[in-house]
């Protein structure tokens, strides 16, 4: 049977997590030639409330579209980190925003942390691209998709006026994750 790789983007509604998952899945499915399914769950609120977006990547057909044991997890709130880190696979990777997740969950997984939201705000220039900074970091940490294909998928999804902003956000996220890995 084909091998599943499971990624979860989690946090609060309004952080752009669903879009981050969609771009990751598109990059895998359309640009990388793998199979991918993206699904989501969120509350009825437009902002706030919990939100998660899951991406399953495989070299074969994907039956169950939701995560079973997560290989890589992004948590942009303390609540998400506490709730979902228990689903992480042994040896998996957890990426957290170091300023929003102050109590670091412990377990048999690698934790990578940097101030994701502040990076978007101060280094890229707009807080709204937090999800793209996080996506860049997740692409680096998961290694399922090449940096080039992921960047193509990002640029295919954003309005022309914001191409440079998103490109910068994606690449800063990618570099920061590599640096944080040490």
């Amino acid at each position, binding site marked *: *049977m084909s091998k599943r790789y499971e990624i979860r983007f989690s946090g609060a509604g309004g952080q752009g997590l669903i879009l981050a998952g*969609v771009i990751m*899945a*598109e990059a895998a*499915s*359309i640009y990388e030639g793998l*199979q*991918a*399914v*993206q*699904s*989501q*769950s*969120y*509350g*009825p609120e437009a902002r706030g409330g919990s939100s998660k977006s899951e991406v399953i990547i495989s070299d074969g057909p*994907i*039956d*169950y*579209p*939701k995560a*079973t044991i997560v290989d890589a997890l992004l948590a942009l709130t303390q609540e998400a980190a506490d709730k979902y880190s228990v689903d992480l696979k042994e040896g998996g990777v957890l990426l957290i925003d170091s300023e929003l997740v102050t109590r670091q969950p412990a377990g048999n997984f690698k934790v990578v942390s940097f101030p994701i939201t502040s990076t978007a705000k101060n280094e890229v220039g707009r807080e709204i691209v937090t999800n793209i900074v996080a996506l860049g970091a997740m692409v680096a940490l998961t290694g399922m998709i090449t940096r080039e294909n992921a960047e193509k998928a990002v640029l295919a999804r954003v309005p022309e006026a914001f191409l440079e902003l998103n490109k910068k956000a994606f690449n800063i996220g990618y570099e920061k994750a590599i640096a944080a890995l040490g």
Partner: protein
Amino acid sequence: MGKKVAFLQGNEAAAHGALYAGCNFFAGYPITPSTEVAEVLSAELPKIGGKFIQMEDEIGAMAALLGGALAGSKALTSTSGPGLSLKQELIGYGCIAEIPCVIYNVMRGGPSTGMPTGPSQSDVMCAKWGTHGDHPAICLVPASVQETYEETIRAFNLSEKYRTPVMVMPDEIVAHMRERIVFPEPGEIEIIPRKAPTVPPEQYKPYDTSFGDVPPLAAFGSEYRFHVTGLNKMQDGFPTTKASVVQEEEERQVRKVEGNVDDIVKFEEYLLDDAEIVVVAFGSTSRSARYAVNEARKEGIKAGMFRIITYWPFPEKQLLALAKRGVKAFITPEMNLGMTHGLVKGCTEGKAPVLGIFRVDGEPINPGQILDKMKEVK
């Protein structure tokens, strides 16, 4: 290569499937988790000269749908549980007046407002018994983005072929999930047109059974003038209470579907040849079931899946044949409190136990739950 591919949501695929089938009229009222269908069609329909109308509520939307369809359009509405409840009286009108149209309903938690963003499979009974009176019911339950596209096309075809409303009911997971889709070329999938009258306007009767159980339907408002009513009617469309006519017409309306189950019922058999445990599943739950069946096979459990694609008419004949062949147990995982469970029990005549897995907490049934249930079978 050559074929167009995209990475789409189930709802977006349904909208594109409708366009492939020739849909040129949409009337609806936005509701989570089905709004993306309206979003896509509000952008696409004007480009092809079609009409998109957002009505004041779901009842108005269903009325507009019937009007548009009767006037000759291929018509679609999309909604979810609370909207489906509101549409019911007019769905009955569509059944008795024999108006072909497609109702796309995404199943979310219920009853009432329930859980707007949570998945469910609890509208399947509403698809058949929501509107009162005896009437034909066709309901399709896709399990993937590709299948949502294709089943929406099939829904239009069945509605035209049998001149009756048809429902497509993905659960919220299938509707919001994104997957790769390969679009068929124009002409690759057959599109069934509406049967047009062959007689001149002065001889036309809207329910003329000399043309068979499915009489030709002229476009309302054209030179073909006819009467349409929710009352029991005669062949010319005018009301009647004549017992023999009412009996005959009611039976014909139901027979259009019940007499053609082999043409309408679609299903998938997965590893059933030697299966001792048969999981009967549909929609996103069938994806958990497939995962569980594959895991079970690795452990030496002879499991298989019967996947329902046409929910109404229910695949009774096929399930009874499986029960008669001999299975140790049927398992029905579903995101409701046992709707399919009851149907499977009914049609398998007690020949094998039917074990249910029911979940209504807004979470999907996971493969582990199904695998655990398989292990309970002795």
